[in-house]
């Protein structure tokens, strides 16, 4: 079974599942595996690795800058697959690749999915790959390689479209908390609660993770009350930006978000 499907199916986690995003090849080109490993050790339940892109229209300044830096470091899709090629010797958490569709198209969708399966990537998040194009042109390729495609919904997404996405999408639904690019300061507001409650009442077949504006334990906990868990991106990139000791800082960040006590860490 796909690791993402298995996680949501078998998790007994009451506190919410934590998915952390980071940009591949950031802060340094060779940090990808180090960051991934520390996230797993800290207790992240899923990890989303961003493939840097020159024109990330859905991202705010923090992630844009990490993309620019990673590209400057020389990051490419090929290098990323090379960095990940032996990850499954040590990494057990589900791993997703997040990025924009053009680099994937240039690599070739078929080759890309094949390579994902080979290195042990479980799912893809490609915000600018439209639902209809995925369904008519690419779904059979994803399916053949066992790669799940994760779709986004926003507070503006109509009920009809949410149902379509729930039908076609797999793994989980990436629930964007507010109308914004990544890195907005919002947290979880009253408007959002109404939206999250509306989603809960829809009885969707896919679980949901809430993203955008989640930055610490309080926002993570709040979001997890309304969904299977939450996704942290920009706030984690800021930790990486400022870190002098990546492994330590990453683990501490995850402990804090999940509110793991010192005794639990020691045990």
């Amino acid at each position, binding site marked *: 079974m796909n690791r993402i499907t298995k996680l949501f199916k078998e998790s007994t986690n009451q506190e919410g599942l934590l998915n952390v995003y980071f940009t591949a090849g950031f802060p340094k080109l060779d940090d990808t595996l180090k960051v991934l490993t520390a996230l797993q050790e800290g207790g992240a339940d899923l990890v989303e690795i961003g493939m840097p*892109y020159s*024109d990330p229209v859905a991202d705010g300044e923090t992630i844009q800058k990490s993309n620019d830096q990673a590209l400057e470091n020389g990051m490419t899709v090929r290098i990323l697959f090379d960095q990940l090629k032996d990850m499954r010797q040590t990494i057990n958490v589900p791993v997703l690749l997040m990025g924009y569709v*053009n680099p994937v198209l*240039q690599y070739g969708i078929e080759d890309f999915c094949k390579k994902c399966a080979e290195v042990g990537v479980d799912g893809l998040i490609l*915000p*600018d790959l439209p639902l209809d194009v995925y369904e008519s042109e690419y779904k059979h390729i994803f399916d053949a390689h066992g790669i799940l495609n994760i779709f*986004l919904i926003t507070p503006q*997404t109509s009920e009809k*479209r949410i149902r379509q996405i729930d039908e076609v999408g797999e793994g989980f639904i990436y629930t964007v908390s507010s109308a*914004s690019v990544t890195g907005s300061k919002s947290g979880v507001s009253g408007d959002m609660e109404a939206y999250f409650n509306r989603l809960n009442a829809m009885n969707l077949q896919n679980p949901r993770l809430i993203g955008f504006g989640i930055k610490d334990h309080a926002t993570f906990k709040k979001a997890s009350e309304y969904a299977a868990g939450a996704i942290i991106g920009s706030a984690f990139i800021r930790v990486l930006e400022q870190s002098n000791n990546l492994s330590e800082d990453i683990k501490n960040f995850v402990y804090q978000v999940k509110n793991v006590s010192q005794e639990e860490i020691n045990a």
Partner: protein
Amino acid sequence: MMASVAEKNLYQVNSRGYYGTFGGAFIPEMLYPNVEELREHYLQIISDPSFQAEYNDLLRNYVGRPTPLYKANRLSEKYNTNIFLKREDLCHTGAHKVNNTIGQILLAKRLGKKRVVAETGAGQHGVATATVCALMNIECIVYMGELDIERQAPNVARMKMLGAEVRAATCGSKTLKDATNEAMRHWINNPVDTHYIIGSVVGPHPYPDMVARFQSIISEEMRWQLKEQTGKETPDYVVACVGGGSNAAGAFYHFLDEEQVKLVAVEAAGQGVHSGHSAATTALGKPGVLHGSRTILMQTEDGQVTEPYSISAGLDYPGIGPQHAYLFDSGRGTFLSATDDEAVQAAFELTRLEGIIPALESSHALAVLGKLGATPNETVILNLSGRGDKDMATYMKYID
């Protein structure tokens, strides 16, 4: 007004938003409702008689249409053929861009939008947007690459005087593509009350088709003006420069299905197509996705968008509209390019022969007149997309 539109519709957008394999709406979900709202309503709004009446009235009495079709005799003599200039440089605000912004502001009003956001390269589209926003009393925010803000200072001043807020795009190459990214992000963050006025035939469907329709007035006028002046139904060549391709799309629109009319699109070769400093998209690009549509774009092997270069800020864009990608791919369009130097030389030539100072963008179209192979009996219509006032600082460097 738009009844004579391409009867066979071979080169027009299909019902799914594609031109062949190009086009579509490759947008993040955050933009989906905005774009869907437009897609659902644009045709109905545009074809509404009250819209048409208001649009045509403004084009006539505010923009100054029809713009002349001018037989350039001395230029014709030089190239030993018959050259007509479509004088879009005489539009209010100095370029064809205003045809589109008039249409889109009327659309935005009918959609109940309170604010407009736009991107701009040379500043012509920004000025045209700020102008119609002033006219309609709508708040206006224009994103412009930091680099372009420096090299197009007069247009920045015009936008500010018109009451627009000009915001610098400081990421990436700091030019048009980055300003477009910022405008899209702004629209994501303000989905309900804001309309995004794209300045060219680029972006997700329905933008390329919508902008082409608003610019199609150019070729609509060309047809009857040519007939009136020469008795001919169609010219042999239509020549236009291509940044994103809106002036070219408008100039080609009513000739698309008349295969005997050669459609010539001219891209900016910068310092030379293969110099590493160029914006000649079809020569250097490959199919991919840029700003919401599948098109041809300049990119690295890894699929990263390449930073283009041209002396002309309006042509300094790494892609072309999806319809142009289709015209290129299908062979219906002929794609040529002109270097910085060739364009500047052509600008001086037109100025000295005809007393018209063209925009640097339009000068690229002028620069290929000698390469067309047009005979003394043939007719060439060149779309003079804008005037050169904004480019005087650049031109001055060539005057000794």
